[in-house]
């Protein structure tokens, strides 16, 4: 199949590198600093999860990478996004259009609002193939049907003639994935791809993503708030809080030995499945992270998490912590990691 012709990047080479990204929104009420110095890289065939709660800047990071934010009000204040040695932020619009969909593509949370309601789904998949690969209409349409088969849509030729409203939520998300994967991109950015779906359908879609990744060697940036999805899908994780990266490590390390108090709190506050079968019948109370997230309009002095943190010292309230390597491959932005490890390590 033609989409399989591109050769996957070697696993050690970085597909995309984000360096010190700052994205601001200029609103009438002031500047919202949505992304505040985010740096990470993703290697070929790897799944990198970006986790955080609402307003943590995870979607703004993804949209900045593809330059999909409306500017104004958004402004990428500084930083670099390197793809194949070129900074995407400085590319002319025409070149950027060639990257989107062809080299880096994206799927969104709500498939109904991202699909064209008055175009058959087959044509929507074909459109992307035709635009990016310059094939004929007929060729594009037949490749679209193959792409629909690839994402597990039964009777693909028939379904290609249907409109989005005729399909279920799970089917629509498969269409979105077919569009995204049709040109065999090297990087797929998936922003909460299964959040709107039921759990049995979520399992189908996650399995499909794993399967496609293995067959095509695509790197995936998976944006999610669900730690279960992270554990299931990703090799590495970036944890975000208030527009900042607070921790980055392998999935195993993060769950076994979190080094930032926010990550620790997040892991503790999730109710666990099968907790009632544990000897004590499961903890009576969930661990809370007291307080609420800070407003992104205010200047944050020191560590953004300090007002909610059980480990915070005077320094935390005054000096912003630096994201530093605490262990090989494990970075955290915290002054008190040692205190945390002494208590919980």
């Amino acid at each position: 199949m033609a989409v399989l012709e591109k050769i996957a990047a070697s696993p050690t080479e970085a597909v995309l590198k984000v360096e010190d990204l700052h994205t601001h929104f200029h609103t009438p009420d002031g500047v919202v600093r949505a992304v505040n110095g985010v740096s990470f890289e993703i290697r070929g065939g790897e799944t990198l999860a970006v986790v955080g709660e609402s307003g943590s800047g995870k979607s703004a990071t993804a949209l900045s990478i593809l330059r999909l934010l409306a500017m104004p009000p958004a402004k990428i204040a500084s930083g670099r996004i390197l793809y194949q040695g070129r900074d995407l932020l400085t590319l002319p619009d025409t070149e950027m259009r060639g990257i989107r969909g062809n080299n880096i593509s994206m799927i969104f949370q709500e498939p109904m609002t991202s699909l064209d309601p008055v175009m058959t789904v087959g044509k929507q998949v074909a459109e992307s193939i035709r635009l990016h690969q310059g094939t004929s209409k007929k060729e594009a349409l037949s490749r679209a049907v193959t792409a629909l088969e690839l994402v597990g849509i039964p009777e693909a030729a028939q379904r290609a003639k249907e409109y989005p409203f005729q399909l279920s939520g799970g089917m629509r998300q498969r269409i979105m994935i077919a569009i995204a994967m049709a040109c065999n991109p090297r990087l797929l950015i998936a922003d909460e791809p299964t959040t709107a779906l039921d759990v049995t359908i979520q399992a189908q879609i996650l399995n499909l993503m794993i399967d496609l990744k293995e067959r095509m060697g695509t790197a995936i940036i998976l944006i999610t708030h669900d730690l279960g999805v992270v554990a299931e899908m990703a090799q590495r994780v970036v944890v975000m809080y208030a527009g900042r990266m607070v921790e980055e490590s392998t999935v195993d390390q993060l769950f076994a030995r979190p080094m930032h108090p926010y990550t620790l709190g997040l892991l503790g506050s999730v109710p666990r499945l099968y907790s009632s079968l544990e000897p004590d019948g499961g903890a009576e109370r969930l661990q809370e992270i007291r307080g609420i997230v800070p407003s992104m309009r205010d200047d944050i002095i020191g560590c953004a998490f300090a007002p909610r943190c059980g480990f915070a010292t005077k320094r935390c309230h005054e000096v912003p912590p630096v994201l530093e390597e605490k262990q090989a491959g494990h970075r955290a932005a915290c002054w008190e990691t040692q205190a945390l490890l002494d208590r919980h390590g």
Partner: protein
Amino acid sequence: MAEWAGNGENNGKRTVLSVRDLTMHFPVKHGLFGQVSGHVYAVDGVSFSIREGETLGVVGESGCGKTTLGKTVLRLLAPTAGQIVLRGQDITRRSDRQMREQRRQMQMVFQDPYSSLNPRMPCGQIVAEPLEIYDLVSGREKDELVTSLFERVGLSADQKARYPHQLSGGQRQRLGIARALALNPSLIVADEPVSALDVSVQAQVINLLKDLQREFNLAYLFISHDLAVVEHISHRIAVMYLGKVVEIADKRALFSSPLHPYSEALLSAVPVPDPGAKRDQIILRGDVPSPINPPPGCAFHTRCPYVKDICRTEVPALQEVTEGHFAACHLRTSAAPD
């Protein structure tokens, strides 16, 4: 009848709510004159009961009828058939006027704290309104009661003068809970009360609901799609599929040995936040069929990995398989021929 469908151990707690064969069908209308062309079988013969201080969790995917069940139990919808008994009183066919007294006993907490609070009303007034409607207290006494409710749910007294849009999502949900508590109800129907909240805030609200239950001996009907949340907060759990309860049991029984293939698949599909966890996932094929035209026989047979001939024709009844553990599956209730 009140003992129907697995009450679990009795320990002297009174039954707050019991529901039998509850059915809610919505007509599907067509054309200019609104001819009825079919029905949505949203809730189809559901039975359960809840005791004081007990939480019955209801889980299921979208369209399984769990929200309609909650609304029907509260008589916000008039049921098509069946019986609802609240604290010994049959409320199934009461008129709105007759329902007035009963409504004090049952309150609701909604999923979306944005749309379920009046944006033009100060928060204090939102909580005071039910007290005024029932003319329970007035003047300083009312103010004191509202203040104590605010404190109880973790809001500060000076937030009484604020408007809902000035609160965070978690605070708004606390406000919704304070409003539900104002009339000192015996039953709270909570429909996805934490689904719109971030996990760290979700934990705060779940803990609050558990504390309040202990303090006021509340019965909860807790509706959610999130199995881990339901497991954490519930004593017993009902699993719904296409308008029917397919399994109902004590949570430990359900999680240690699910009897219905749908429950089993549902449990296996939840991503577990533990990268080392090895598990056998059952990936169900296909989608949930339409509740307008549910499949004959067992509604789950189109997706069931263990489907037998009998499943395609005969509707399985909800039967007690082990003590207090009910399931509606031919594989469990009879020696189904291959």
